[in-house]
């Protein structure tokens, strides 16, 4: 083909400027700064509208769950429909507490970053129900493979805030021994896997973990979380595929908070189809759920967990929510989306909704809420003081620099010992 052999032919006219208009489709974005988002793109179902199938349902038979939106709490905070599986008020109150604590922690760490005391932070504001309700619907023996926006899993599994804070400070109490960027926590005892900087890698890993459980005949299951942006990565495909082929006992979650840094979810393939819809293509049930509805999230997770434990295989859950704050402390969302977007988000705030539900049901009061909030703020404060006792940023790094050379391998090989000694000599 001579045009190819001769080199790329500059198109005589390209793009909108040209005579031959470009026919490439570019996904739409609801609004850019200065305008107001039209959330009409979001397909919503009425609370209670979708059926709750048996846990051994075939994916192909329950496709409506991938297109619709499972909701339990209606606009008046009343629980309705088949997905309402009544939970003890104490359980709901525990959920509320975990969400509130997560938010208080986020807010405080964000402030700490602004004061220059930690170098980086990522908030999960507006998405607390995802992590908290899901952790609570699983068993302690189940293994969790989080993304960087799932701090609620750590909170709900009772990992002390001090431990998380020490990681943020890279001080003597840092579970990562100074090796990971802030927020890249893990917890062996709480069975929460190490967070990776490389997106989506945890998906096939969780499936592998679950496969091992199945091979060993155990009934622990695995669950993994990624953002909707990250579902574009190859490992999303690998996760679905391996889960499908071996019917692994795993819950694969896509947290669709509408944005991947500055990139709207349409660029991840959310314009043509829901993310939950990827599941049925692999024979995996896909369920799209209101991610800000604690009860709905809990119910679908429980369904998926029962399904997995009963050996009916994996489930793909899409948790529809909204990233209320910046992507991270390095980000300024007012550059790419309307500043007040979250105020118009049709699915509200997860904490507010559970709170109103509990008040409506007579299990909670505004003043109890104030008191709890204050108590949790105090808990965050005292945890922070405790964390600082293990090394403040002003004191410099409180970890032995020799730790840099450990854990590259189980046993330190000769060449790393030599390098460790050279560094020690350099630093005197």
């Amino acid at each position, binding site marked *: 083909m001579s045009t190819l052999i001769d080199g790329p032919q500059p*198109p005589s006219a390209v793009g909108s400027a040209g005579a031959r208009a470009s026919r490439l489709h570019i996904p739409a974005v609801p609004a850019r700064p200065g305008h107001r988002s039209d959330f009409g793109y979001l397909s919503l179902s009425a609370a209670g509208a979708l059926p709750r199938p048996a846990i051994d349902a075939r994916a192909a038979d329950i496709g409506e769950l991938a297109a619709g939106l499972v909701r339990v709490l209606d606009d008046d905070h009343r629980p309705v429909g088949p997905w309402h599986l009544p939970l003890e008020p104490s359980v709901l109150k525990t959920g509320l507490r975990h969400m509130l604590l997560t938010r208080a922690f986020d807010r405080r760490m964000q402030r700490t970053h602004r004061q220059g005391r930690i170098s980086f932070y990522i908030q999960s504001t507006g998405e607390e129900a995802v992590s908290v309700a899901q952790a609570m619907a699983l068993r302690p023996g189940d293994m969790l493979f989080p993304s960087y926006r799932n701090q609620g899993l750590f909170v709900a599994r009772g990992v002390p805030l001090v431990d998380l804070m020490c990681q943020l400070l890279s001080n003597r109490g840092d579970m990562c021994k100074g090796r990971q960027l802030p927020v890249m926590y893990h917890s062996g005892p709480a069975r929460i896997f190490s967070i990776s900087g*490389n*997106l989506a890698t945890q998906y096939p890993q969780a499936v592998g973990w679950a496969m091992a459980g199945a091979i060993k005949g155990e009934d622990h299951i695995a669950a993994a979380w990624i953002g909707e942006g990250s579902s574009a990565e190859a490992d999303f495909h690998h996760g679905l595929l391996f889960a499908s082929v071996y019917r692994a006992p795993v819950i694969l979650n896509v947290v669709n908070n509408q944005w991947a840094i500055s990139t709207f979810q349409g660029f991840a393939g959310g314009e043509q189809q829901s993310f939950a819809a990827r599941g049925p293509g692999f024979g995996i049930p896909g369920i799209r759920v209101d991610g800000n509805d604690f009860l709905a999230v809990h119910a679908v997770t429980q369904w998926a967990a029962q399904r997995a434990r009963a050996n009916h295989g994996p489930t793909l859950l899409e948790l529809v929510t909204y990233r209320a704050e910046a992507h991270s402390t390095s980000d300024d969302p007012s550059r790419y989306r309307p500043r007040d977007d979250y105020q118009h988000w049709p699915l509200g705030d997860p904490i507010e909704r559970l709170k109103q539900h509990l008040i409506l049901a007579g299990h909670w009061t505004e003043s109890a809420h104030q008191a709890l909030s204050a108590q949790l703020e105090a808990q965050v404060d005292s945890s922070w003081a405790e964390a600082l006792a293990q090394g403040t940023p002003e004191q410099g790094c409180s970890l032995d*620099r020799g730790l840099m050379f450990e854990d590259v391998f189980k046993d330190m090989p000769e060449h790393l010992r030599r390098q460790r000694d050279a560094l020690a000599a350099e630093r005197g």
Partner: protein
Amino acid sequence: MPQMNMIQALNSAMDVMLERDPSVIVMGEDVGYFGGVFRVTEGLQRKYGEHRVLDTPIAEGGIVGAALGRGVNGLRPVAEFQFSDYIYPAFDQIVSELARLRYRSAGAFWSPVTVRTPCGGGIRGGQTHSQSPEGIFTHVCGIKVVMPSNPYDAKGLLIASIEDDDPVIFFEPKRLYNGPFDGTPDKAAVAWKGDPRAEVPEGHYAVPIGKAQIVRSGAALTIVTYGTMVHVCEAAVRDTRLDAEIIDVRSMIPLDVDTLCSSVSRTGRCLIVHEATGFSGFGAELSATIQERCFWDLEAPIERVTGWDTPYPSAFEWDYFPGPARVAAALRRLMSPP
């Protein structure tokens, strides 16, 4: 002459090429409306439209695969990877496809893709925002690999890369985006403004791929380095007051062996410095090649100063980073071998 920092210089290179050549397109994660997390593509979508400056899904393998196909169909894609730590998911498309296409099809098909990606540490990024994986790519035949150390070279090399009919992996030492960092994090940050290497013409010019640059002439010994380390080595030379020749490699493939070797043959001593992990890093190739060519002129062993053979740990960044003190110690050792 306008002054530009490295971000502006890179932006200007793409601006010039988008303007001149309708087949040039820019693509990557967050590069469009937002202008990139490091702002390198700022304003380009506004100017050239969202069909030529495209936001993409977060799928590095898909980005390269799609860029390759576009290149075959007559476009000149410039793809950004947000961090070079995230280039690995695209490894197969780069190594097995982009690098091999011309060869395996005996020239019938080829794709002039440029892959831009910020590399290196010193920004508290921790182990997945600080890597310098260039060494890996230098073992892949069929791609060119370059890394500038200043705004002038950044623009000129990026234009040359985009115009090049071979695929180019273009590494941007992100610690240099805003200023010529010399390796001492406690000192106040220095901006590019006022630096002669920040005098960057507005228009089109190219810095040829395949040519190293002698950054400082000297007779006592030769330092072979690139990227951020060029500035660190300059600081170390100032500190030691040694009459070192400093060579900025700039282009790893093809490598300007003649410039390196004629210097080492003259000085008889050679220090190789890079930020990446040492073991099997690009410094190994530099050392091996120089030793092969200059053996009879060497008065001391060629040494390497590099990052340690560990991941880049966030809390120990400045213990990991091969700063001026480590370079200076090696320089002194080299001048009076034990």
